[in-house]
């Protein structure tokens, strides 16, 4: 019951907050601009069945390997598929993987970080040790390892990426909680007789939420790039689904023959999407850093 009440109050803070973004200077604009990019890509991908001029998987819609022209603005690949349609429809996998992995990270990383730092002691040390070890591992290699074990597919890719990034969430939440715990208002709550759980949910968590938002947005960008990478080396989804990552692989093979357009346009889309999230993350972290304007 109490948990629901908290979430409602957090939302009521969010809405007026959004409208005031324009007044918050450069950082606010970063968030808005990044959000626009991201939303545009999402909308484009969602509407792809209707707005793509051709079926992205249909072969020989046009002449093979033809450069960008008025008929095919992004050119065609070696199987004669329209690149524009592939670019419009290719974000689906990446977005799904990214969103899924972020959700998994939130579900695992946040409670773990809260619990570990609030409990402290040996348990905290132990969990931190595990997290640090995973964190120390080169992320991409770890993701590859997990995909090999779990197999291909959207969900497995998402899980592999999540495993790599949970430690980031954990660390940030933990360090936030630890610094918040030092604050007098936590002592005040304890002095008033509040139970540990109340302190965690009503005093610590609301103050940690901003940093969660920042980690999540930056994480999105990372997840997208990792997903692209995994597909690039062939660990991604099956061949028949239009996917930017796959086009990257294909496009790279086609580069020596001079067909620059196959790799370029999907690559640009990946960059745009990652950029959108990164800008949001940067802007958010600027906005949410302590307001010390005395």
């Amino acid at each position, binding site marked *: 019951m109490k948990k629901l009440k908290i979430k409602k109050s957090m939302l009521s*803070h969010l809405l007026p907050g959004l409208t005031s973004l324009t007044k918050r200077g450069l950082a606010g604009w970063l968030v808005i601009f990044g959000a626009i990019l991201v939303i545009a890509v999402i909308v484009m991908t969602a509407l792809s069945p209707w707005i793509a001029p051709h079926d992205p998987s249909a072969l020989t819609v046009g002449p093979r390997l033809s450069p960008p022209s008025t008929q095919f603005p992004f050119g065609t690949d070696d199987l004669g598929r329209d690149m524009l349609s592939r670019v419009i429809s290719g974000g689906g996998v990446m977005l799904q993987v990214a969103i899924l992995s972020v959700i998994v990270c939130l579900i695992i990383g946040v409670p773990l970080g809260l619990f570990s730092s609030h409990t402290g002691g040996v348990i905290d040390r132990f969990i931190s040790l595990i997290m640090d070890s995973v964190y120390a591992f080169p992320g991409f290699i770890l993701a590859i390892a997990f995909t090999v074990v779990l197999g291909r597919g959207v969900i497995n890719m998402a899980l592999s990426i999540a495993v790599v990034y949970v430690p980031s969430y954990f660390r940030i939440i933990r360090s936030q909680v630890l610094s918040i715990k030092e604050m*007098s208002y936590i*002592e*005040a709550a*304890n002095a*008033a*007789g509040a139970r540990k759980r109340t302190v965690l949910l009503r005093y610590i968590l609301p103050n940690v939420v901003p940093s969660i938002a920042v980690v999540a947005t930056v994480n999105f960008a990372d997840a997208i790039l990792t997903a692209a990478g995994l597909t690039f080396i062939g660990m991604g989804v099956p061949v028949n689904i239009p996917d930017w990552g796959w086009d990257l692989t294909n496009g790279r093979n086609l580069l020596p023959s001079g067909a620059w357009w196959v790799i370029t346009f999907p690559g640009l889309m990946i960059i745009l999407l990652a950029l959108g999230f990164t800008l949001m993350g940067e802007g958010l972290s600027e906005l949410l850093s302590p307001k010390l304007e005395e």
Partner: protein
Amino acid sequence: MSENEILKVEHLKKYFPVEKSFLEKMLTRTRHFVRAVDDVSFSVLKGEIFTLAGESGCGKTTTGKIIVSLMPPTSGKIFFDNVEITTLNHEALRVLKRKLQIIFQDPYASFNPRMKIGEAVGHPLEIHDIAKGSEKRKKVLEILDRVGLTPAEKFVDLYPHQMSGGQRQRAAMARALILQPEFIVADEPVSMIDVSLRTAIIDLMLNLRKDFGLTYLFITHDLAIAKYISDRIAIMYLGKIVELADKQTIFSNPMHPYTQALLAAIPVPVPERMRKTTQLKGDVPSAINIPSGCRFRTRCPRCAEKTCKEKEPELVPVSPNHYVACDLAEK
């Protein structure tokens, strides 16, 4: 514990272990401690304002926090209303917190930035299941009004960052008072507030004492404020009380060399008034490596080598109600 005593502290100690690196843990046996509070005993009478005074690091804040059960003592006993509180179980301790409250030094950090003042002040009522909903709101409005945050309806919905330091400190008092405690520990309540506003807060505290029948443990490093507000004062140095007496006596007849040095160092707002600064040698030793015997001897202008080095002086009465911990004091 006599009729009049509301709080009695006996041989209170608080040692904090010094964190060692992994290598040090392997190679050395000895454990080092920061002896923040090192055998402190005193009692507070009902309705009085008892001040723990001393410089930073002397252990006064730690003592205050132990008394309101924010941390457990390493050893020693604390009696509140005749009940020994260091051995109470969790639940009993929670109930006790209704009677013993604390006001913190930093008005900026002592409020949750994401909670409205009304919520923050009223939260203790929820915690102890005393009132909810409209009844809670009524009590909150009353107490905000009482501490001078008027119109209360306006302040209830403000966030901490929308209020000034002085206003926040008043809200802190409201929060402490809403449970109708008997005893309040005030930890440097005005040191982070603008000078022109301090008097108002202190006067508020004095008024509240009258109206609510409170007893205060006042903690400060500012002896000038201590002189204004206290009934009795205990001077602390490196975790021990070195002198304890009522206000008049401390200022007119300080006997411990440290007290004398402290008083001489206080700036007096009179032009060209140069007080004779008792030159204290050196700096305060670390609380990890407390000097043997009298811990003040490394800085004391009167230190007599032999006695002061070997024996730790006890807090003894040199006259009724005037205690000094110095073997050379009576001379």
